[in-house]
């Protein structure tokens, strides 16, 4: 596609429910990244994919968080048993190769009530 597409753009969920966030990167971009951003804060790295494998998942906050990427394209970030502290904007980005800038999606604003 022309840009990085994320869905949904907003999600309100009850504490304890599972949520799935989707990212569709730019076609041909082999690298895909998930970050999250709390209100007024910087970006916190979650996980990085190269193709379908995840060489660095060091930023996942707990085992409630998981992510996968299939076909070297679409990625889903799953949060199980959501907690209020999971509320944030979840940002996905893709890049062509090392030394390239990221193209970000518009993010998913997750609110856990």
């Amino acid at each position, binding site marked *: 596609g022309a840009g990085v597409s994320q869905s949904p753009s907003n999600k309100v969920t009850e504490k304890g429910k599972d949520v799935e966030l989707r990212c569709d990167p730019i076609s041909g971009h082999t*690298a895909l990244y998930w970050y999250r951003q709390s209100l007024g804060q910087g970006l916190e*790295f979650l996980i990085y994919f190269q193709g379908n494998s995840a060489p*660095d998942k060091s930023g996942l906050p707990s085992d409630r968080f998981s992510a996968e990427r299939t076909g070297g394209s679409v990625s889903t970030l799953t949060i199980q048993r959501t907690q209020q502290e999971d509320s944030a*904007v979840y940002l996905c980005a893709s*890049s062509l190769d090392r030394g390239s800038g990221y193209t*970000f999606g*518009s993010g998913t604003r997750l609110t856990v009530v």
Partner: protein
Amino acid sequence: SQQGEEDPQALSIQEGENATMNCSYKTSINNLQWYRQNSGRGLVHLILIRSNEREKHSGRLRVTLDTSKKSSSLLITASRAADTASYFCATDDIKAAGNKLTFGGGTRVLVKP
């Protein structure tokens, strides 16, 4: 953890003035990038400067990099109201996997008409 620390955290200027913000980091890097974020959603890549470069220009943007001091600056000349946004530096750590970037906390810039 955030590697880049931006200074100042917030900046308010009049239209037409120049805006300067600084970024300090801690490790050895391949490159340093600057991004702009409007309204707390997706970030837009502005400029990338490699570790062997000292200065780079793009339109009204000027970026400097001093690897001996582990610092960078972003100058926006002749600012416009549309430049109102948060600006983030991001570093590509030599030891990081792939193209993983570490973002700073950002500088919020307000350009008053």
